[in-house]
């Protein structure tokens, strides 16, 4: 700056016109003469600054529980906007706030794009605070991962909860339904499960949502029709088998806000009647619960998605593409991930040699069977091979001639220990005939039987007796009847007397005992006779398990693998017959 000049800081002037975006602006400084200058000083220029208070723009959002909530016409019919005023759950107690240890906030799913809808979810209180409300009873505090599961389901129109068996999918689904019902976001729920699990759901609902009225659709046709149409019970439970019969009773007459499919792998085949019927139910939200949404191939997932979001996935997608597309819809946790405190699950592979009598019968049957299959030439079918496999597996259990069984010998020895220590064991097998044979030999352990030929009405009674009677040490179960949905965490021992075709089913069976509430380590004994068909099947399944793990690990999709036709033929080094009619394979 020159010594002869100075700059006035007063040099501002009023801006012309509106003052919209700025209150004022500085103008270039005015040169003021110094005292050494002989010319008279310039008079100061007075300027006025108007500080206007223009209106600040505000975006406002009303939510359904507000008395001023009005349904925007253009989004009428959308999920959460169509709800009545919520129940007033004024806390009744006094005192300070309950301060939970952790906070689980709702996150809007990726497919919720409207800001209003996203904010609705983001501004909800943490689940822990919601559940600390005195009017929402919970029998015990859920685990943090269960809170996450509830917050995952809550905002979703389409979702798969694919937690490993035993992590409490049922409870998480019930709590999410309960909160949605209490918030008035849903009013009519249909829960579909396998028939043997209906009572389990009823029990869990009475535990986790005791105040929600429930209707179980069963009985004569008139009664069922009434249940389908009546509107007083917010939750209805139907079984898959019944949907077939009642299709005419509910289709085009009933609409649900939410349909939940338990053991949703039941609809993995999109061409099945079950899948077709389930997809025809009018609904706003669709949830699927399954510990094994992929049982045999990625196509299984496509089948389930036909219920959740039709045409969203398709078979031509690579597993990686499919996994990425499905990511926001699927929540999958394993016990290893989330239950650091769950007692360990220990596997023991009991590799046994057949007794001499069994071995003689086995060899004769295999030689004769393979010879016969070979002689069939092009007429051979998968059924023929299956028959031989089943025949050999049965011999591995019991020699049909002498009744000898190396597995039984081992089982009896182990059960002696189980009974002596006051513990209980579950024995799984594929066949009812094996269950009966075992029951005869294990009489001293007072075994109970649970399989497809036991009437549904008696099944709960059997489970209860096994649970409560200290003299009952053994429950003999078939994989089909006992592998899903039952809570048998009071058993510390599981025996797989023979092996199922699919490791996912075996996992489900094992997890009846190894689940939340397990009192101690669960020991799983997998019985396998060496140098037999059982060993060959096991080898293939283990290899496939690893392959699926590699393919789908990035999506955390549960891995599972059944056997293909080629693999089944390969058990006996047989070639697949050429397809008939000359069509390309």
């Amino acid at each position, binding site marked *: 700056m020159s010594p002869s000049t100075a700059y006035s800081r007063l040099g501002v002037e009023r801006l012309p016109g509106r003052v919209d975006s700025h209150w004022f602006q500085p103008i270039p400084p005015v040169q003021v003469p110094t005292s050494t200058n002989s010319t008279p000083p310039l008079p100061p220029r007075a300027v006025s600054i108007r500080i206007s208070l223009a209106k600040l723009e505000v*975006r406002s959002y009303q939510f359904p529980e507000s008395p001023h909530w009005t349904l925007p016409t253009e989004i009428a019919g959308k999920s959460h906007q169509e709800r009545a005023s919520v129940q007033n759950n004024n806390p009744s107690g006094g005192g300070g706030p309950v301060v939970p240890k952790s906070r689980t906030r709702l996150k809007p799913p990726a497919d919720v794009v409207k800001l209003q809808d996203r904010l609705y979810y983001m*501004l909800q209180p943490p689940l822990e*605070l919601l559940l600390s409300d005195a009017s929402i009873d919970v029998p015990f505090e859920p685990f943090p991962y269960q809170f996450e599961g509830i917050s995952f389901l809550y905002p979703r129109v389409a979702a798969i909860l694919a937690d490993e068996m035993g992590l409490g999918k049922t409870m998480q689904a019930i709590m999410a339904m309960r909160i949605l019902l209490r918030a008035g976001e849903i009013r009519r729920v249909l829960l579909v499960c396998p028939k043997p699990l209906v009572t389990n759901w009823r029990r869990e609902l009475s535990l986790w949502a005791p105040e929600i009225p429930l209707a179980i659709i069963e009985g004569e046709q008139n009664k069922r029709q009434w249940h389908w149409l009546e509107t007083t019970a917010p939750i209805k439970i139907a079984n898959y088998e019944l949907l077939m019969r009642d299709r005419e009773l509910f289709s085009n007459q009933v609409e649900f806000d939410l349909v939940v499919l338990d053991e949703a792998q039941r609809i993995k085949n999109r061409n099945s009647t079950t899948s077709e019927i389930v997809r025809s139910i009018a609904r706003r939200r669709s949830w699927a619960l399954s510990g094994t949404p992929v049982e045999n191939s990625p196509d299984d997932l496509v089948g389930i998605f036909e219920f959740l979001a039709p045409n969203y996935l398709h078979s031509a997608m690579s597993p990686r593409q499919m996994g990425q597309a499905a990511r926001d819809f699927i929540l999958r946790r394993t016990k290893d991930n989330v239950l650091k405190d769950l007692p360990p699950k220990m596997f023991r592979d009991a590799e046994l040699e057949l007794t001499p009598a069994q071995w003689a019968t086995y060899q004769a049957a295999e030689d004769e069977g393979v010879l016969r299959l070979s002689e069939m030439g092009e007429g051979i079918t998968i059924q023929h091979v299956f028959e031989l496999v089943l025949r050999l597996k049965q011999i591995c259990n019991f020699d049909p001639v002498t009744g000898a069984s190396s597995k039984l010998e081992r089982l009896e020895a182990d059960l002696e220990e189980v009974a002596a220590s006051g513990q209980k064991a579950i024995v799984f097998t594929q066949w009812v005939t094996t269950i009966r044979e075992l029951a005869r030999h294990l009489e001293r352990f007072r075994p109970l039987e649970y399989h497809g030929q036991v009437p549904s009405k008696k099944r709960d009674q059997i489970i209860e007796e096994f649970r409560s009677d200290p003299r009952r040490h053994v429950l003999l179960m078939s994989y089909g009847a006992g592998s899903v949905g039952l809570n048998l965490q009071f058993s510390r021992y599981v025996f797989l007397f023979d092996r199922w075709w699919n490791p996912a089913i075996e996992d489900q069976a094992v997890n009846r005992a190894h689940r939340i509430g397990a009192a101690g380590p669960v020991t799983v004994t997998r019985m396998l006779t060496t140098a037999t068909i059982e060993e060959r099947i096991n080898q293939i399944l283990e290899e496939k398990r690893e392959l699926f793990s590699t393919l789908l690990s990035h999506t955390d999709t549960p891995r599972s693998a059944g056997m293909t036709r080629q693999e089944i033929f390969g058990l006996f080094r047989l070639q697949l017959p050429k397809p008939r009619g000359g069509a390309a394979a």
Partner: protein
Amino acid sequence: MANARSEPAPALGFLSVVEHAEHGLFGGYLILNANGRPLEFHCTAPVKANRAQEILYGPTLKPFLYGEQIGQTLVRKGQVEPLLICTDHEALLSVREFCSIPVVMVAGQSPFHPSLPILQFRLGSQSVAVLSTFGNDQELVQRRWQAHELKLELLEPFSRIREAIEEAQRGMRTSNGAPLSSIPAASGTVGSPPTSATVS
């Protein structure tokens, strides 16, 4: 307020301002029912004082921007009248001068270090304060708190406001295709309406 009533609905207001280094100040006002569920949410476009404003307003700039400009505007947008308004900023206590609802500041992890004269007291297990110039609010707030047997945790909703403001800003960026530019204080320009369900 649209519906001033003799007996306010059992709702609580939570008023906060989030400072963004680039865009300026975002105001958020969340009204919850007694169960902590959201009834209304209002947020402002970003407000940024320029250099001249900083000079002219001096130490009064912050209370002016927080309380008079942002706070007052937001509270007036509320349709449900809450029993009280909670804030986590001392500068927002001045909102009380523009509304009839008691305004309390909620103490965070650390105790109050007020620059204004305040009256401290407890609501349930939580430490709060009102401006001394509105000393009668203490009795009013405590009476309402007890009458409605409130149990709400008073600090937790501010984290919701912060996340919602961030989401709203992100939503605007997405819908406009460009970052939301900061708007000078008292400006009236914003981008396109955020959703079809927006209620003004």
